[in-house]
């Protein structure tokens, strides 16, 4: 696996990456030659013809233009850039034309996370898992503003728009985990809209597809919730150490009286949390912006139950929690 990349480029881990890099380095070396000429000559002239007393500039005829020279330095760069143009366009078409047998994943961007829907059903948030050596087609759109899907190690980037689908594709050549950045500015959480591309072997991918429908069997609700807290990207906006982020922190939240932006207040209970997840605009906590997206269709009932259980477990004042099952959870853990 290429883990270091070159001096300039990140590791090349998709089928088109090395083609992009080849052109990059062609331009780089051509540029270095031209740059060395420009700067070398300027410096040489500046030193050689530095002003000296009694020595005038030489302005003899022919030093103010030279048709042959001018044609030369027009035509040679023109040829060079035309090579670059054709080369760049050819690879660009490969980046844009999706192979027929590609495996299609639906990508949704929204403030400030990515979600992925797989053809077999099931979805994941902020982590897209794909098989190695198989072309993956991405059908993308946004639920709010413009985002952009960028995986440096695959050299692939495409804007994600709110009013139409955009399409791109890649074929990973190495098993591993890669950063997925949002590269179109989308507000407060823009720099935290970072996902992972997890490239796995064909067998592992099949196993993962089966697990996708996983609903926490064999785990306590609370632990399943803790897992979802990270995997469904709640963590981006809700902290559990009491710090304010884009949204209210979750620790010591359950049972608390929350003041809302419309002046009323509400006790945080199971139904309030459920409503906040599915219809976040209904009640806005005072002091926060109304920016949370709905998770309708992303989270299943069981998963919402798990998140509620997790939020309860973060309440240190147990007298605020009536639900006995979650307290049992807590005592189990303490043992």
């Amino acid at each position: 696996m290429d883990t270091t990349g070159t001096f300039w480029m990140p590791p090349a881990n998709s089928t088109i990456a090395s083609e992009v890099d080849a052109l990059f380095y062609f331009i780089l070396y051509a540029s270095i030659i031209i740059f060395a000429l420009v700067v070398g000559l300027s410096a040489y002239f500046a030193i050689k013809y530095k002003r000296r007393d009694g020595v005038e500039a030489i302005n003899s005829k022919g030093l103010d233009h030279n048709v042959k020279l001018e044609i030369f330095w027009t035509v040679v760069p023109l040829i060079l850039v035309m090579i670059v143009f054709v080369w760049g366009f050819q690879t660009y078409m490969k980046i844009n034309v999706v192979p027929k047998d590609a495996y299609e994943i639906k990508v949704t961007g929204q403030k400030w996370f990515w979600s992925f829907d797989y053809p077999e059903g099931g979805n994941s948030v902020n982590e897209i898992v794909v098989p190695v050596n198989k072309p993956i087609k991405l059908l993308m759109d946004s639920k709010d503003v413009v985002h952009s899907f960028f995986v440096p190690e695959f050299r692939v980037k495409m804007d994600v728009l709110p009013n139409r689908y955009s399409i791109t594709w890649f074929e990973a050549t190495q098993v591993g985990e890669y950063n997925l950045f949002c590269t179109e500015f989308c507000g407060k959480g823009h720099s935290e809209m970072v996902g992972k591309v997890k490239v796995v072997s064909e067998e592992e991918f099949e196993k993962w597809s089966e697990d996708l429908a996983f609903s926490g069997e064999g785990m306590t609700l609370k632990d399943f919730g803790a897992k979802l807290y990270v995997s469904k990207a709640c963590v981006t906006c809700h902290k559990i150490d009491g710090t304010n982020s884009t949204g209210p922190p979750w620790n010591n939240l359950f049972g608390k009286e929350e003041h809302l932006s419309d002046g009323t207040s509400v006790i945080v209970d199971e139904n309030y949390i459920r409503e906040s997840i599915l219809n976040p605009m209904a009640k806005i906590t005072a002091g926060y912006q109304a920016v949370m997206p709905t998770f309708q269709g992303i989270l299943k009932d069981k998963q919402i139950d798990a998140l509620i259980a997790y939020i309860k477990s973060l309440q240190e004042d147990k007298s605020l929690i009536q639900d006995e099952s979650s307290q049992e959870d807590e005592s189990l853990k303490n043992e």
Partner: protein
Amino acid sequence: MNKMPETHYLNATKGIKSWLTTVDHKRIGILYLFSIMFFFFIGGMFAILLRLELLTPSELYIDSDTYNQFFTLHGAIMIFLFIIPAIPAILGNFVLPIMIGAKDVAFPRLNLASWYIYMFGSMFAVFSLVSGGVDTGWTFYTPYSTTTSTSVISMTLGAFILGFSSIFTGLNFIVTVHKLRSPGMTWFKMPLFAWGMYATALIQVLATPILGITLLLLIIERTVGIGIFDPAMGGDPVLYQHFFWFYSHPAVYIMILPGMAIISELITAHSHKKIFGYTAIAYSSLGIAFASFIVWGHHMFTSGQSELAAMIFSFLTFFVAIPSGIKVFNWIATLYKGSIAWTTPMLYTLAFLFLFSIGGLTGIFLGALSVDIHLHDTYFIVAHFHYVMVGGTVIAFLGGLHHWWPKMWGRMYNETQAKIACGLIFVGFNMTFFTQFIMGAKGMPRRYHLYDDVYRPFHAFSTYGSWVMAIGFFLMAYYLFRSLYVGKPAGDNPWGALTHEWSITSPPPEHNFESIPITEHGPYDYDKVVAKSTFTEK
């Protein structure tokens, strides 16, 4: 020892009122100088604050919302309040009429009006700064800009108003160049600075209205709720991008053409060499102005525009590279066998050749479709346009400022300090921005408050560079202000240059010339005319 002339434009009339109602192009240039430099300082402070925050990958001292406002304000102030007006409004106003042998611009009152409009527009920008900031980036991309709760309206309204200031200046210069050239000054005896200003003015007049209308549509969408760009109301966000870049790409040339125009003057005046390829440089300015209108789509290679459109825009983009290349080669050929004085303006000229070449060559990477897909919206872009805009335009502007400073004030700055400052800015700039090419190619996205730890060393080095640059700028502010009081009188022609402005006193008389001068020789006929330098350090 030179003496200052007894009366000149600075002391011809006195009092605040005489300045605020002046129609003298030179005084208006000075008004612009102080107001634009004030905003350069504000924009620069935001840059320093941004770089400080980026010293570490996690939050250092400001949260994401504040960070987003800082980079927006840095960009918007630097673009709309500093770099677009800087050269035409300060140096163009001051020098252009004298250069072509005119007593003033064609419409002196319109000229003053453009300054008041600039100040008026800048108030809106200041208002959005103090009323909660703006967090859209200077590009105001929809639908983010139509939905965010920050002061987008006052900032865009400010940019809309500033557009008129820009149009008025452009209009004035076009008419001035057409109608007020002195007898004997044919089009091809015009200094190349005038050619550059003329080409710039054409773009200002033709392109700025498009920005005005686009921003107005944005304001209408936000206030009245007519859906033009926001898909929630049936609009199209990509349409906004087309409109925006249809202005903002030509605007890039509103920024760089004046810089190129200055370099043509400096390189000849400080080497006493006739310019190489006068006609090629003059025509390439017009060629760039024209081509700048048909390449806007290269900002949108990843926006989902059709492959055909992308191909055409990429093809056309490479053609813009050629005239810029021609200019650089011509300037270098000009140095050949010259008598090169190592003055501060010449140092800036050499710095320009170095930095602008990097800025231009890295543009080739971005014009190439496949490579741009990878580099788009990363720090590579940030570095590229800073190399062009700062390494090109700002360095040329500073060179021009040091070149015409003794003409403006009649006094010379301390050359040793000026050279140190130039060196600091050059080194600091490369430290700050060259590292950004590398981290950008490695995938660091732009406009990120928090970032992956692998980019940390690059960001840290870049921040150290910004401090070196800042020291250079503060040193410059110090010696320039000081020169106003203790600078040695420079004499009429400290550089021994041939254009008209050096034939009158420094500072110039109120009406420039006692009688309209006759242009008898070309601006760079160093083979025919010898002008003695009126200033020596010792």
